[in-house]
């Protein structure tokens, strides 16, 4: 177990190196450039592959090739660059190739800005690319979790042969915190054998990596197989953190860096006698709907996001009309303030103790 002061973006790189990631392919874009720079230094030192690709499109397709070869591979970018990777991500999902993609989000749409945002929630959890596919989406809320979830991401990618996205933001990527590298947390993260890899057919039949099925009946079978996998992931991998929810009458739902602010708001509300609590989804897909369902007796839920209201739709689906759901968000790189969140709770009729 070691302790290090790390910048968020560097923590992703460190975790990938510790996860035996053999290939990283990237392209510069703010606010995630430190990830590329970290790999450019540390991959050659470890005898591994770093390429600065000609575009995000090329980078994700290099990941496709490396993942097909059976090695752990990743790429990273920020919002506009992730849009460019979406074609490749659909192919990776269709061909069932494991890989890790980090999105250090910035404000959009279009070129937007370079300040932190959470406005790619829809893109990450609802598709983004074409076709019926799902990414496993992990939402860290600190540098420790950037490290831990990157390690978890490689494990889940291999376990389910599926791309996994780390959905961070410019705030997380740029801040520094202490990271404890605890190998016990990754005890069961051993890399599985990959007999399906296209790494030369010596001693076996040829392997094919493909997402093309021209016969519609066969393509439907392939989709059914994917859906069954997604059902298993939904059943097994919902992860969530809760804070002071046991007696809560008002619950804040928030993920990533916004949840850090929401947690402070919960404390401030409690000081004012409002019974507030926090549900922080860690897996944005699969969305931890079970947890929300179990709190269907609360008076109301306030979803706090750094966007115009995206996760709030999943919260509403989860409680299915049983609880009123409100929204508070900031966009464009503006950060929600805890006092404003408390004011929202008061407006919602925060119950006094």
């Amino acid at each position: 177990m070691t302790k290090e002061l790390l910048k968020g973006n560097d923590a992703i790189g460190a975790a990938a190196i510790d996860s035996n990631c053999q290939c990283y392919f990237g392209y510069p874009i703010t606010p995630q450039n430190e990830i590329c720079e970290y790999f450019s230094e540390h991959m050659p030192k470890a005898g591994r592959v770093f390429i600065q690709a000609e575009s995000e499109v090329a980078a994700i397709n290099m990941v496709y090739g490396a993942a097909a070869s059976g090695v752990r591979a990743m790429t990273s970018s920020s919002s506009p660059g992730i849009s460019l990777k979406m074609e490749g991500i659909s192919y990776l999902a269709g061909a069932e190739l494991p890989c890790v993609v980090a999105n250090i989000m910035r404000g959009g749409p279009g070129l937007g800005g370079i300040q932190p945002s959470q406005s790619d929630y829809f893109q990450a959890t609802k598709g983004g690319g074409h076709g019926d596919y799902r990414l496993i989406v992990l939402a860290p809320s600190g540098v420790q979790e950037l490290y831990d979830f990157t390690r978890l991401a490689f494990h889940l990618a291999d376990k389910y042969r599926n791309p996994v996205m780390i959905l961070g933001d410019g705030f997380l990527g740029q801040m520094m915190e202490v990271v404890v590298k605890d190998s016990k947390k990754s005890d069961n993260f051993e890399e599985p054998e990959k007999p399906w890899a296209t790494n030369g057919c010596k001693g076996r039949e040829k392997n094919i990596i493909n997402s093309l099925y021209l016969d519609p009946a066969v393509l439907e079978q392939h989709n059914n197989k994917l859906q069954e996998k997604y059902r298993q992931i939904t059943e097994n991998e919902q992860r969530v953190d809760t804070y002071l929810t046991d007696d809560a009458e008002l619950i804040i739902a928030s993920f990533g860096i916004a949840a850090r602010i929401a947690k402070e708001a919960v404390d401030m509300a409690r000081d004012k006698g409002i019974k507030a609590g926090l549900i922080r989804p860690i897996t944005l897909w699969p969305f931890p709907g079970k947890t929300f369902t179990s709190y269907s007796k609360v008076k109301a839920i306030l979803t706090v996001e750094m966007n115009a209201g995206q996760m709030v739709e999943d919260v509403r689906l989860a409680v299915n009309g049983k609880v009123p759901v409100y929204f508070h968000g900031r966009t464009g790189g503006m950060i929600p303030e805890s006092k404003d969140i408390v004011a929202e709770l008061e407006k919602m009729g925060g119950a006094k103790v």
Partner: protein
Amino acid sequence: MSTTILTRPESLSDRKFHYCPGCSHGIAHRLVGEVIDELGVREKTVGIAPVGCSVLLYDYVNFDCIQAAHGRAPAVATGVKRANPDSVVFTYQGDGDLASIGMAETVHAAARGENITIVFINNAVYGMTGGQMAPTTLTSQVTTTTPFGRDCGIAGHPIKVPELLSSLEGATYLTRVAVNNPKNVNKAKKALKKAFQIQIDGRGFSLVEIVAICPINWRMPPEKALKWLEDSMLPLYPLGDIKAEQGVS
């Protein structure tokens, strides 16, 4: 008593090609298969199939194969080769895939000197989608999207890929061949073998352009298509080495 005079290369599967009558893909596939057999690298070869008529390449070969997104084959090949440097990696791409949507990936793979081989089929049209203008479509050539003939003032000029790449330090071997007659087929095979050998020797990026016919989309019987290739295509796309390092043989 029977005598075997020709067998299928071990590197090709027994699947029947789906290609149209007269199409050059069958010859090009066979040449790639023969070369991989002769170099003894079938068990470490990884082929990258494009989007286009040859998208089903993975069905016709008897070695590991990956289907890539449209134009991205050189990037996919880069990932495969860097992850597994002992593998022998080639892409098989048409003119639309390689020189239009995939031009960036093509140029940068060459610029990096990726130790891969590209087999580039130039038949001057988009075949699979039904004969639209390709980046290599000739001036005045009629296609389904240039119904009045390619007007270069509107639709741009044809691209000569090996010539375009020849200024790049990373490109080791750039050549153009055709498979329109037995003599040229033999030359094409030699070029392919040289290209793969350069990769096996770790000498960098190689690209073999194969000038090919597409009788169906050219709306010509195969014999007329072969003549059109000679009379119209070869003057614009002359055969021979565009770049070959000294000492590479």
